[in-house]
Structures are given as C-alpha cells and as structure tokens.
C-alpha cells in the first residue's frame, strides 16, 4: 500500500467538500482553502520523495490488480506535476484571500477551485486511459463554472468557445478510447502499451495516435486548435486566469508526454515528426498573436500558446536531452506564467485596468513590484540567469544535436519575439508616465494586509524562478530522472503489471 499516491487526489476533494459545508462563512472557506492547499503541497512532496526512492509508486484501487482494476501510478513526471500543482494551489489560495470578490465566493469559488485541483491531480496520477477521460471531465466542469463566475458579456462569449472546443476534444478523446479498446481490449495504459508492442503495427494504430494527438492538442492549446485559449483566459477573475494559465493546458501537455512515450512509440518517424511541425507552428503563431495585442492578460494568454510549442518540441525531438528539456520547460513555465498573471492582477488592483494604453507609472510608484515583474518576464523570454534560460537552452541544444535546424531556428526567433512582448508590457505598464485619463489614485495606496496577500504569492513564485535559475542542478536531475523513465516504457509496464515485456 502506498497511500501517498491517492492522498493528493483525496485532499483537494475533501477540502472542496468541507468548503461546501462551510457555505455560509466566507472566512471559514478561506481558511479551509489555504490549509487544504498547504496539505496538498505537503502530500505531493511526500509523493515526490517516495518516487525518488522507488522509481514508480503504484496503487491498485480496491485491491483489484492491474489490468482489471483502476491503477494510480506515479512516476517522476507525474510527481513533479503534482508538486507544481500543490505549489500553484498554495499561491492561488493566498492570492484569492484578497482578490476573490464576495459575489464570486457566494457562487462557490472555493469548492470549484479545489474540485479543479482534484481533477488536475487525478489526471496526473491515473494509470487508466478511461479514468484519465473522467478526470479530464471533472477538471473541465469545474473550469467551466469558474470561468463564468461574474457573468459578464466577455466571459459568456469566451465561455461559449471554451466549452465547445473542450467538449469537441473530449468527444474525440472518447472516440479514440473506443477504437483503442476495440483494438487491444484493455484500458490500463501499461497493458495497452504491452499489447500494442507485441501486436503487429497497423495503420489503425497511427489513426488512433493522431486522434489522441488532436484531442490532447486542443486541451494543450497547440496549433491549429488553440484559438479558444486567447478568447477565454483573459475574461475570468484574475486568480482563475492564473490557475488556468499555470495548470490546465499543462494537463494536455502531460497527457501528450504520457501517451506518446508510453503507448504510441512504435512509429516516431510519423507521429513525432507530426508533433515537430505542430510545435513549430504553435510557437510562431502564439508569439505573433501576442505581438498584435495591447491587453495585459491577452498578451500573456498568447504566450501560453507559444510556450506550449517549446514543451511539444521537447517531446517531438524524442531524444533523452529533448525530453529533459521538455520536462524542465514545463516546470519553469508553470511557475513563471502563473506569476505573470498574478502580477497583472496586482496592477489591475492598483489602476483598475488591463489595457496597456491606460496603464503606466507603476515603476515610479512601486519599484519593488516592477522588479517582481521583471523576474518572471525576463525568465519567460529566456534571459540568463533565470529559469527560462536553462529551459530554452536545453531544448534548443537538443534541437541542434538532432539537427532539426528549421525548428531550432523558429525556437530562437520566438525567444526574441517573446522578449519583445515582455519589453512592451514593461515599457507600457511600468516605465511610461501614467496617462492623464487614468485615475492614478490607487497607485500610491498604503500596504494594507489585503494588498500584502496579493504580494506574498508573487514574491514566493519569483523566488522559485530565481532558485531554479541560480541552482538548476537538482531540478535538472529530476528532469533527467523523469526523462529516463519516460524513454524506458518497459520500466513503467513492469512496475504496473509485474511482468517484463
């Protein structure tokens, strides 16, 4: 028995239930939410330590041995993702203490947030492909409701696109599961991998692989089906945007990493080559979209799309170094992107707008906040010595070693354009003078506990970025360990099924 695999799922579910019970008391919900997030972080670190010792940690639900029952499996990639989820949960719970408005809280903000976390963690930990679908839906339903909290016009328009594209992707995912089950007669991912590796490779396998690629590609906001993301992410409450930006698309990326290393690894010259082109176009369209925008959160949303391209590039090159780069990139990106969204929330609190043309003068009034913005912004663009530099460096070096010149060139160019976008935000929101028509009275407001609650998670996440940048070795070792596991599916199969393939 290894309870640490199930605990990160149970904790947010329990927290969500308890906050539901405390429906009438906002204070109690807030306390429960923060405590629940911290407990989630602690259990996820326990899982990480346990995975580092044992390699794979497996738990059979209801003691039904694989492949008959549902298994929970944690390897290094899952454990890393769960720890990051825990960190983001704590950051968002702290930020929500002062950013969530009473009307959002009354409509179940905290229960939904923890249900979302349970869905995200469940997707990372399950070892069963249909169970993965169920966790996806848990996550989606919670995210639908969170996105439209407040019920403004833009939110409704964004939500229609978000809901449609995500349901479409779920339907494709479900169809692919059906075809795969018809082919191999099992749902356990390790068992599927084992049976597919023994069976003769047919065209149908490639068809199913592409269906999974499309389904997860929509969730991960990869080219060409990414447009729901910039249409919806900037419309919700800012803490929700930050949570989505950090975690939701990364669930899609995680699913791609899992499926295209474990199950569909027979014909990488077709599937991974396709992914390579997807990655290149995702990077370039995302960054060009951002260049045209003048709204703080919308620029950041487009940059999520372009950064997803780097992670997919790591997977698509499919060499040990590239996978290390991809995993490292995910770790860096979740922290940095959430932080940038939180900072956009603080500037909104100070000046009441997200429009870059109306923002300004933040550097003069709040130099500390401006430095806190520069850390994740320059890290996103990949300047040394911040975390993004090493993430990009590993991916691009893998590209050079694989002699994929076009994609490597695109990745370098996109890095430059990312810097342009970040400098644009810096120049418009922080550096230039406050425009006359904007009311700047909020800019010099005193440091109240309410404002401090917004600063705290930003400082913590910026410190994490600096830590990864200045002391990247342990993070690199973790990514290396997970890449080893991902490129050796036999280890996963043996850990789950107990047979050597």
């Amino acid at each position, binding site marked *: 028995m290894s309870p640490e695999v199930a605990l990160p799922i149970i904790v947010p579910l329990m927290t969500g239930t308890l906050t539901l019970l405390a429906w009438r008391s906002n204070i109690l919900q807030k306390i429960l939410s923060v405590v629940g997030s911290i407990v989630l972080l602690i259990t996820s670190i326990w899982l990480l330590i346990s995975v580092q010792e044992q390699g794979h940690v497996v738990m059979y639900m209801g003691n039904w041995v694989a492949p008959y029952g549902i298994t929970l499996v944690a390897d290094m990639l899952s454990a890393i993702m769960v720890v990051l989820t825990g960190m983001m949960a704590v950051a968002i719970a702290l930020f929500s203490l002062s950013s969530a408005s009473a009307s959002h809280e009354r409509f179940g903000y905290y229960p939904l947030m923890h249900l979302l976390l349970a869905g995200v963690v469940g997707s990372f930990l399950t070892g069963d492909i249909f169970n993965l679908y169920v966790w996806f839906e848990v996550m989606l339903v919670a995210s639908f409701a969170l996105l439209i909290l407040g019920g403004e016009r*833009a939110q409704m328009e964004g939500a*229609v696109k978000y809901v449609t594209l995500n349901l479409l992707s779920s339907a494709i995912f479900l169809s692919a*599961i059906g075809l795969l089950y*018809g082919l191999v007669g099992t749902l356990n991912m390790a068992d599927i991998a084992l049976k597919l590796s023994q069976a003769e490779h047919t065209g149908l396998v490639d068809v199913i692989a592409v269906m999974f690629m499309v389904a997860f590609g929509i969730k991960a906001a990869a080219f060409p089906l990414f447009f729901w993301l910039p249409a919806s992410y900037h419309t919700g409450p800012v803490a929700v945007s930050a949570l989505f930006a950090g975690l939701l698309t990364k669930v899609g990326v995680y699913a791609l990493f899992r499926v295209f290393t474990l199950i569909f690894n027979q014909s990488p010259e077709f599937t991974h080559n396709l992914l390579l082109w997807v990655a290149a176009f995702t990077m370039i369209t995302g960054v060009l979209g951002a260049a045209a925008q003048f709204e703080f959160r919308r620029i950041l949303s487009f940059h999520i799309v372009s950064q997803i391209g780097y992670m997919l590039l790591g997977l698509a090159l499919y060499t040990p170094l590239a996978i290390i780069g991809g995993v490292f990139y995910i770790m860096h990106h979740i922290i940095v992107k959430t932080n940038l969204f939180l900072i956009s929330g603080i500037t909104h609190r100070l000046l009441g707008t997200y429009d870059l043309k109306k923002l300004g003068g933040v550097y003069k009034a709040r130099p500390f906040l401006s430095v806190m913005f520069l850390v994740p912004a320059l890290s996103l663009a990949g300047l040394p010595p911040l975390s993004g530099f090493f993430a990009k460096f590993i991916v691009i070096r893998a590209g050079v070693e694989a002699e994929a010149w076009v994609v490597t060139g695109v990745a370098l160019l996109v890095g430059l354009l990312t810097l342009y976008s970040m400098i644009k935000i810096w120049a418009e929101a922080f550096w230039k003078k406050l425009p006359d028509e904007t009311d700047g009275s909020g800019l010099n407001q005193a440091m109240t506990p309410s404002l401090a609650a917004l600063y705290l998670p930003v400082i913590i996440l910026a410190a994490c970025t600096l830590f990864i940048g200045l002391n990247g070795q342990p993070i690199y070792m973790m990514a290396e360990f997970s890449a080893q596991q991902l490129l050796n599916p036999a280890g996963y199969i043996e850990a789950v099924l107990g047979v050597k393939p």
Partner: protein
Amino acid sequence: MEPIMAIVVGCLYAAAIYMMLRRSIVKLVIGLMLLSNAANLLIFTSAGMTRGAPPLIPVGAMQPEGMIADPLPQALILTAIVIAFGVLAFAVVLIHRAYNIIHTDNLDQMKDTDT
C-alpha cells in the same frame, strides 16, 4: 449488425459536425449532444457486438462458459452518458445566460474577445 452501426455512427458524426458549424448557439449545443452520442455508439460498436450471450457465470463455476458479451464497453458508455448529460446541462444553461446577456444567438456576433 456492425456495418449498419458503422453507418449510423458515421451519419451521427456528420450531423453533429454540420450542426456545430451553423451560426445558432442552440444548434451548436444540439451538435455537441449528437457528437457525444456518436462517440458512445462508436465505443459500443468497435468493442464488438455479441448477441444473446450475457456475461453471467453459472452457479458453481469459476468462470463463464463459452463466448460471452464484453460488459466493459457498457460500463464505459454509462459513465460517458452521465458525464455528457451533466456537461450538456451546463451548456444549455450557459447558452441561455449568454443569450440573456448578449441578446443574440448568432455565433458570428460573439467576436468581442477574438480581436
């Protein structure tokens, strides 16, 4: 039976995509509904259809005798139906609210967040 089901599933997918490409949000939701039904029937068909062989184990035996129908696809479909129902209920409420706020059911006019 399988060829007929295959054609039915194909028609459902086609109808669903057609409905989703229309401009009205009501038709969009109808499209989503058809799409989830098509996916469910696809699971049912591709997992293999066995007629008149319930997966029951005779009294005293340890395992079923002869060929039996696979009960797992039905469990999958049941789960998927429940999920699709819940999500669809949300989608219906969403388009109702969206219509009340935006005062149009035309998807082409919901482009404020695109540019």
